C-alpha cells in the first residue's frame, strides 16, 4: 500500500481499515514528507505526524512532492527488501548460516 500525502485525523480510520482489508503478505510505502513525518504541516491540530505512528512502514520516499523517479526508486528498494526477506527466511528454515 502506498500512503501518499498528508494523513489527517479524519482520514486515519479509513487508512487503518484499508490496511486491515489487505491480504497478507503486505508492505507499506510512505510517500512524501507529509506521510513520513507530517511535513510542513507537522504542527497542525489535524495532521498525524507520520503514518509510522500507526502502521509499520517498510520504505520511506522523501520529497515534497517526491519526484516520479524517487517513487520508482522506492518501489525498487521495496523489491530488494522483499527479496532479502525471502532469502533470509529460506536460509533460516534450512539452517543455513549467513
Amino acid at each position, binding site marked *: 500500500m502506498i500512503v501518499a500525502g498528508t494523513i489527517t*485525523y*479524519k482520514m486515519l480510520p479509513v487508512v487503518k481499515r484499508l490496511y486491515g482489508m489487505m491480504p497478507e503478505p503486505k508492505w507499506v510505502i510512505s510517500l512524501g514528507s507529509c506521510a513520513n513525518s*507530517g511535513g510542513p504541516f*507537522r*504542527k*497542525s*491540530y*489535524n495532521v498525524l*505526524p507520520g503514518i509510522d505512528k500507526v502502521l509499520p512502514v517498510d520504505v520511506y520516499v522523501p520529497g515534497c512532492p517526491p519526484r516520479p523517479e524517487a517513487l520508482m526508486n522506492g518501489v525498487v528498494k521495496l523489491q530488494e527488501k522483499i527479496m532479502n526477506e525471502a532469502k533470509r527466511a529460506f536460509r533460516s528454515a534450512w539452517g543455513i548460516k549467513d
Partner: protein
Amino acid sequence: MKDHGQAHNSPMSSKPKENNPKEHPKECLVGSGKPLDPEAIKSILLKRFGSVIEETQVINKELVIWVSAANLLEVGRFLKDSELAFDHPRCLCGVDQGEYLEVVYHLCSISRNHKITVKVKLPRHMPKVPSLYSVYKGADWHEREAAEMFGIIFEGHPDPRHLLLLDDFQGYPLRKDFSWSAPE
C-alpha cells in the same frame, strides 16, 4: 448508434442546445449596469436603513459596513434584491477579534461590478447570527466552516454539522484561545 436516451430523458437535462463557445450569448450579464462608488452605495443604504447600519468605512476603495445580527437578514435581502444587485457571494469568514467574534461577508455584483463587505459583531459567550442561506445558497458551506472553526451559531442553517473536522472534534481551532499539543 443506440441512443443513450436516459441521459436526454432525465428531468435534469433539457434538449441539448447547440454549443458554440466562441460566441458570446446575447444576454451577457457582466457589466450591464453601471458600478457605483462606495459613497453612492453608502448613501443608498443610509437612506433605506438609517441607524440600522451601525458604522461605515471605506477600506481599499471598498465600502465596509457593520450591522447587528438582528438586522442582517433584512439588509442582506435588500442588498441582493434591490437596484444594488449584490447577487454574488464571494466569501464568508469568521474572525476572532479578542473581545468579540466577527463574521465578515464579502459580496459583489456581477451585473454592476461593485463590491461591499458586511461585518457583524458577536459577543463571545453567545455568538448567534441568522443564516444567510435563504438569501445566498453559496453561504451554506462557508457558514458550516465558520461554525466549526469559531463556534458561531448560524440560526436557520439547514445542515449545521461539521464540514471539515471530525464530528466529535472538541474545541474551536481558529479561536485565539484554542490550544493543542503540537509535536516537536
